[in-house]
């Protein structure tokens, strides 16, 4: 058994997000949101890597992210990164949301080097959710995009 976690290493902000996560939830089941044009869904990570983040954003006709919901399977830093991401993108335009960088999350949550990948996943989940929204609405995608949702193999 390996040493897994030094609880003292978590910043107060990470612990606060872990205990009181903001905007946990979704706008429907995976099937329901798949057909909603006003909702973008991003799912990044993989269970075998120990992190899966799901971000759902609801965007109005003016292109503003009116609401955001997250779910996260991952360590405390991953939960905090995705919780923080929902706080930051709410009220922002799609283009503004795309300017959020993982390094800002690292700084805000005081993440140690071994947890930087958690912030990367959070940034990816924002890009992935926006890409899904654009795809559904036949808008041009730009920059780095990842697939919007996992593909059921069977």
């Amino acid at each position: 058994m390996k040493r897994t976690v030094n609880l003292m290493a978590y910043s107060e902000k990470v612990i606060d997000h872990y205990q009181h996560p903001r905007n946990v939830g979704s706008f429907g089941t995976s099937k329901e949101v798949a057909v909603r044009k006003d909702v973008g869904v991003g799912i990044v990570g993989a269970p075998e890597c120990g992190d899966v983040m799901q971000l759902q954003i609801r965007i109005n006709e003016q292109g503003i992210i009116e609401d955001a919901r997250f779910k996260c399977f991952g360590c405390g830093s991953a939960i905090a990164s995705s919780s923080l991401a929902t706080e930051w993108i709410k009220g922002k335009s799609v283009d503004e949301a795309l300017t959020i960088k993982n390094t800002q999350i690292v700084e805000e949550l005081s993440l140690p080097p071994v947890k930087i990948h958690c912030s990367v996943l959070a940034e990816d989940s924002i890009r992935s959710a926006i890409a899904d929204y654009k795809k559904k609405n036949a808008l041009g995608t730009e920059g780095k995009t990842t697939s919007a949702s996992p593909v059921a193999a069977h």
Partner: protein
Amino acid sequence: MAFKLPIYMDNAAATRTDPRVVEAILPYFTEKYGNSASRNHKFGWDSEDAIDLAREQAATLIGASPKEIVWTSGATESNNLAIKGAAHMYERNPEGTPGRGHIITASHEHKAVLDPCKRLQSEGFDVTFLSPPADGVITRAMVAAAMREDTILVTIMWANNEIGTINEVPEIGALCHERGIIFHTDATQWVGKMPTDVERDHIDLMSWAGHKMYGPKGCGALYVRRRNPRVRLEAIQDGGGHERGMRSGTLNVTGIVGFGKACELASLEMDSERERLLLLRRKLERELSSRLEVVQVNGHAERRLPQLTNISFGFVEGESLLMGIKDIACSSGSACTSASLEPSYVLKALGVGDELAHSSLRLSLGRWSTEEEVDYAIEAIVKAVNHLRTMSPLWDLHKEGIDVSKIEWQTH
């Protein structure tokens, strides 16, 4: 609350040293501090007498003769001495030539067995690493099927340190004796908890350590059979010829005195302790399994140590689970300390999926564990798992009836 936080449930890592053990040790620091090898004064004799008593206490616990106990620094050293020492003594051909000999072990052994075996492999020995079945139990039949004409050593642990499963050790020992093959067992989690008799159980070499049975750290023992057959070992450490030449070095008198006392206490108390802890472990497993969905107790349902359980909680991640139960000191099957996670190789060897391996806890009880502590742990774990599942996207998919293991994930 009748207990202090945090609660200690990591007795498979180290136990509290019994205060009676500490009391026995103390005079050997400041009053009886002689070197047990000093033969010409009272200080030396006092230490030697204490070593002799401890040797007898250790031998009594396992049904051996005192002359068959070799003192070491712990089970890792005992394993190294037993495995490398026996392989080098019983090798078929010298180093640098092919066919030096065949060794059988299992892939979910402790690293202190696996790594010496790998070292021997690099020196030209053939090693078979048996793959355990899903229940984790290595049987006589599995070992028999792997035996060859040139097999010189079998090393199979008595009880697994991560999941507590109990291998068919007496049966494997009997098989080895029928075939004239040396049998070693790493009994670190077993001795002092379960009745042990090296004659009845056909053991040739057996390792164990003080700090797993309420003795001090830094002291271990290796049982080395002297008759039927007489087992010989090539020493790793050369020097003053202590321990019949098998382990040179001034004896750790204080550690050995404590080790002996711990063995004596185990002989007296293990039966009642075992029954008490089995009830507590069963309560822990029963409550967690009934109050939470998708809970898996890893390893064989019955052939397990009474004091240890390894439980996986589906769709929650291990580190966040530990964060949620920070008042319970225990071990987890995964480590999210780097970008690439490594789930427990023991659970992987059993075929436990990565998700369940990542979300496992090892809870190990001990002499001072109470029912109140177990009740507290149950409540804390149920609360943490439920909290994390409200956040888990995998839990949602599971609830929608989607098989998460069949999804193709976008990995980085």
